[in-house]
């Protein structure tokens, strides 16, 4: 916020500090442990009266001096340099708080330098016991310098009470100070042994070599138990959520935790091996290998410590973005580009959007993410995302990736950042608005004076989504439904359900040269039903979401009694590819093969499953095998969330604060797809998904509330970051089962009257029989949808792909677009006008919304 950012690309993400620091810590721990090693080795040589051993100690002291003075100390200065280059704000806090700890450490450095020079220069020039005093002073000073820097490093991870009391002592003697000090001390002894091995293995005198190798092996083995104990102590000293994050949740930590756990027994076993008399070549090879393993070992530990601190640079105080935790709300209000000092583009305009995006990237992302380099390369991590998808991801990234900070800027800044990364770096764009091709359908004849029957047909779903990739993933298998009622016209019409056979036949072939999809409808009590019709629209560039079927009613002698046309809407334009990739240039949203593989990969990473392997083995992963789904009547695993709760509960965290455009990320309701969910009178008066279904947060919370009350722990975890937009608090959110508890017409059209509100709040149908698609009129026999059509496409519906498509029957039977019988047109079935309002209240009147 305060400081300019050193703009790096491939070297970004902290690569410099990794290179310098990991090297330095290895040498500096050697500088501490090696001091004790020298003194004890010299004492051993003195006690055993072994001049050859003393010569070895002297040679090792020279090696020690050269390595720690030249490489060790200057790389320590290097850490200072690089930390103020990469995060000056945090460095400033540390320096201003702990200046006198560092100044004290400097005193000990001075003592170390003098002691080490004197120690080395006076080998053989003073009595050994006195000589060792110099060595002890060196070790003491080195250990003190370790203790002092340990306080500062520990503060960054566990600041203890410092955020409240700003006291030097609270910050220095923080919760991880003592365990970390013991941990590092024992590690220093182990490392001293590793370096000692290297010099010992090169001794020419075989007797001495064996003796010294065994001596070094003790340095590996004896501290190990204490080292492991202090590691456990260190871990236990961390706050619980930090332990959980590092050891259970963060996928990127697993590599380093496993590395650390793997190296430990390797070092112990090597130490044990070295006790035996090994051939000199093997001993030397082993020594070098162990030296390298030691570097990896401490590297893994430092990665865990540094990585586990994310998203903070100083936990609970300052994020890695240099934004103070307490400033986050203010910055979010004012904007990053307004709050930061070193910004060129304070306002975002069309002309500077990408450049402003780069500035935002520098301020908010570069600290951890390289551009085209090895440290968490942002280009690779965001490759699947479109700009809108990435914007959504950033808005919720901290929910499922606790190592990420919450986005600190305004929504406009977030969009500019997403555009810079997705488009500027990865060349991806949002899909363009699609040009719709008009579809016309032939309408069968009807003679209002003479035709004996009215055949009504509808699709209970206004849009059936299909999302399947054969051999990989099945989220929603195909399965459209059709319903029909045959009415014999007359003053008292009859619903004909005997002696007739209804069949359907779709136009065109069934795809890939298969025969056209057709079939018989099953007669149920008053209605004819056809379910599980396997309509499968294309994906990519071609899609017809409105396949049209001709329904024919024939009597027992196969004479045609009536026919009508009806659309069975189906779409594969599900929006997964916006975030999960897989779509090519110019492709519309959908579930492609790469999309499905990516989804499985993410699911495995976040939920600990092994679905990708399953799919790569040839099986199709069906979501419903674990997640119950009433739509396809799948039981799933009762311990897991149902599919709707899981998928909405998860994704809602990325879609917070949006209106109906949140729905459009996945469902075909935006102008980037051909299919449209909402096509009816409600859309025409300006309503959208949110009016009836609520914002996505409310939608998800309702589903999760049901699962939470059923005792499923995952529901509470997903609810934790969602705030209801309409209901008062979390407890007021009404629980609902998917597909069963739905918003209903009568929630606004109370008693079939004109609505006084256009928004449904927390009201749901109580059971399946109460759903619109299953309800009938006051007679109990005529389905609501027979006259009004399916939900989301109720008459008068205006299909953007063809004006007729959703009003085929009103056009056929009435020559208009209105519900059957509207405008007192009872004659469509009754052949004459009617005086009684029989079907439902308020139906015998002029249609209100012509």
């Amino acid at each position, binding site marked *: 916020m305060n*400081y300019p950012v*050193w703009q790096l690309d491939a070297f970004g993400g902290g690569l410099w500090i990794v290179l310098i620091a990991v090297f330095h810590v290895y040498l500096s721990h050697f500088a501490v442990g090696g001091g004790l090693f020298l003194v004890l080795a010299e004492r051993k040589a003195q006690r055993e009266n072994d001049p050859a051993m003393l010569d070895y100690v002297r040679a090792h002291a020279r090696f020690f001096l050269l390595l720690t003075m030249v490489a060790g100390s200057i790389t320590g200065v290097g850490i200072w340099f690089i930390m103020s280059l990469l995060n000056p704000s945090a460095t400033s806090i540390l320096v*201003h708080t702990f200046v006198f700890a560092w100044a004290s450490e400097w005193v*000990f450095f001075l003592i170390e330098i003098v002691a080490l020079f004197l120690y080395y220069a006076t080998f053989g*020039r003073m009595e050994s016991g006195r000589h060792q005093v110099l060595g002890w002073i060196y070790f003491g000073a080195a250990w003190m310098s370790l203790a002092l820097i340990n306080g500062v490093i520990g503060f960054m991870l566990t600041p203890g009470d410092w955020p409240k009391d700003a006291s030097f002592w609270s910050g220095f003697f923080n919760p991880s100070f003592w365990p970390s000090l013991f941990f590092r001390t024992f590690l220093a002894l182990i490392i001293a042994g590793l370096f000692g091995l290297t010099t010992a293995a090169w001794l020419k005198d075989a007797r001495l070599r064996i003796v010294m190798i065994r001596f070094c092996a003790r340095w590996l083995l004896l501290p190990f138990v204490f080292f492991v104990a202090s590691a456990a102590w260190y871990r236990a000293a961390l706050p619980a959520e930090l332990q959980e994050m590092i050891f259970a949740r963060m996928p990127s930590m697993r590599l380093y935790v496993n590395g650390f756990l793997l190296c430990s027994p390797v070092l112990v076993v090597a130490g044990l091996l070295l006790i035996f008399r090994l051939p000199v070549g093997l001993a030397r090879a082993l020594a070098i290998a162990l030296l390298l393993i030691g570097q990896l070992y401490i590297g893994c530990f430092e990665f865990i410590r540094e990585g586990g601190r994310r998203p903070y640079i100083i936990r609970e105080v300052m994020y890695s973005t240099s934004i103070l935790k307490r400033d986050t709300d203010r910055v979010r209000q004012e904007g990053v580009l307004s709050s930061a000092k070193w910004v060129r583009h304070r306002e975002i305009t069309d002309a500077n959007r990408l450049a402003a995006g780069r500035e935002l990237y520098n301020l908010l992302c570069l600290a951890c993410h390289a551009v085209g380099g090895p440290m968490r390369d942002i280009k690779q991590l965001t490759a699947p995302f479109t700009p809108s998808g990435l914007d959504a991801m950033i808005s919720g990234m901290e929910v499922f990736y606790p190592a990420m900070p919450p986005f600190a800027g305004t929504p406009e800044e977030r969009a500019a950042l997403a555009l810079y990364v997705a488009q500027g770096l990865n060349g991806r764009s949002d899909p363009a608005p699609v040009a719709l091709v008009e579809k016309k359908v032939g309408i069968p004849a009807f003679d209002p004076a003479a035709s004996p029957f009215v055949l009504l047909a509808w699709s209970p779903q206004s849009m059936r989504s299909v999302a399947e990739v054969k051999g990989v993933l099945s989220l929603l298998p195909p399965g459209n439904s059709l319903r029909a009622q045959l009415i014999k016209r007359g003053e008292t019409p009859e619903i004909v359900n005997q002696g007739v056979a209804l069949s359907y036949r779709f136009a065109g072939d069934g795809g890939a040269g298969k025969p056209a999809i057709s079939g018989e409808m099953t007669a149920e009590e008053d209605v004819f039903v056809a379910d599980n019709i396997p309509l499968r629209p294309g994906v990519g560039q071609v899609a017809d979401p409105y396949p049209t079927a001709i329904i024919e009613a024939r009597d027992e002698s196969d004479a045609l009694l009536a026919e009508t046309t009806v659309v069975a809407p189906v779409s594969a334009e599900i929006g997964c590819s916006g975030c999960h990739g897989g779509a090519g240039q110019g492709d519309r949203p959908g579930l492609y093969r790469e999309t499905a593989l990516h989804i499985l990969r993410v699911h495995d990473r976040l939920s600990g499953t092994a679905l990708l392997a399953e799919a790569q083995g040839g099986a199709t992963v069906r979501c419903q095998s674990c997640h119950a789904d009433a739509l396809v009547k799948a039981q799933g695993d009762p311990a897991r969330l149902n599919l709707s709760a899981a998928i909405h509960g998860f994704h809602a965290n990325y879609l917070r604060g949006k209106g109906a455009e949140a729905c459009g990320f996945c469902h075909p309701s935006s102008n980037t797809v051909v299919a449209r969910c909402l096509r009816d009178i409600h859309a025409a008066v300006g309503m959208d998904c949110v009016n009836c279904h609520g914002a996505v947060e409310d939608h998800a919370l309702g589903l999760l509330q049901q699962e939470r009350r059923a005792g499923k722990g995952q529901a509470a975890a997903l609810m934790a970051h969602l705030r209801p937009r309409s209901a008062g608090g979390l407890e007021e959110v009404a629980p609902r089962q998917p597909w069963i508890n739905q918003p209903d017409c009568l929630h606004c059209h109370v008693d079939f009257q004109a609505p006084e509100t256009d928004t449904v709040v927390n009201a749901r149908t109580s059971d399946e029989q109460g759903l619109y698609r299953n309800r009938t009129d006051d007679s109990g026999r005529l389905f609501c949808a027979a006259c009004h059509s399916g939900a989301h496409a109720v008459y008068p519906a205006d299909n953007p792909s063809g004006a007729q498509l959703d009003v085929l029957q009103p056009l056929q039977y009435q020559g208009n677009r209105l519900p059957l019988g509207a405008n007192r047109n009872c004659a469509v079935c009754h052949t004459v006008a009617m005086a009684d309002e029989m079907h439902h209240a308020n139906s015998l009147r002029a249609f209100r919304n012509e």
Partner: protein
Amino acid sequence: MDPAALIPIPDAIPVAWGWLQFFLLLTFFLHIVLMNAMLGAAFIALVTHLRGNHASPYTAAVAGNLPFAVAFTVNFGVAPLLFVQVLYGQFIYVSSILMAVFWLSIIALLISAYALAYVYKYQYARLGNGRLAVAGLITLLLLIVAFLFASNLSLMQDPARWSRYFDRPQGVLLNLADPMLLPRYLHFMVSSVAVGGLAMALFFDRKHRKGDPSASPWVKQGCRWFAHATLLNVAVGLWFLVALPKGVLTVSTIAGLLLTASLAGGILLAAPAVVFGLAGRVIAATWCALGAIALMILARGLLRAALLAPWFSLSQLSVRASYSSFILFLFFLAAGLALIVWMVRFTLRSCAAREARP
């Protein structure tokens, strides 16, 4: 862009700024003296080699002791770097970032120079004529490091030029347009030659007092290096003086008065220093030199305050008192210095005792 808008907000300091400034000036003074001796020794050794003399006792002495000089120079450089971050962090972090690539390269350059110093020491006998290359490389590396330090300090005091960052944010800016940069840098470098000569004189003077007959021509040579370099440095210093911005050297404010007085004092001390040098009076010359350097470093600090005055003064820093940690440091400092003194004496005693016993 208004430079004031770019200057980051400083954090609170734990004790009154006077304490920090005191330690900054003290440790920086020690660092500069050591740095001058180190760089000067390397430079004079290089010139000695260039003159064809590859086997002089002087270059052998430099080879033997240069690594110690580097170690202490670096150690005493760390301390003022710490204190300058506390007092002027909002300036020096910015300038460091603006020249980040160059700044960070100091680490590599310094490791190389330090390693080469050990090569020079331990391979001295074997190098033969190669000593010239090694000494030359060490000198070159240290000269570059010094220039980068001078550049950072120049940029740190020049917020008016900071907005160049927006055209080049990759950390590759230097401040070559600053008219003070080159004279400042050369002033320190020529001073190094002078102090290097003084160090040579002192080293061989000690040998001479211990009875080494071959030492005294080297004392004279060291004194000559010192005197001639100091004379040259007066000229370089006048160049620096002329390059100062208008209004900095004034007697109308207390700060200006102090600056003018310390500068004048430093310049005036150059005269007896040169005189003593030419006369071969090493100890007297040393005191004058140290006095001059001390006053110049005080002047440098006051100059910094003057250059930053349009935007900042140390009294603006808020204090969040933590005197207990300061007391801790003072305790460690006193104890540490006492321990070092004891260690040196203990070593000398123990070595003498060992030599006494056959």
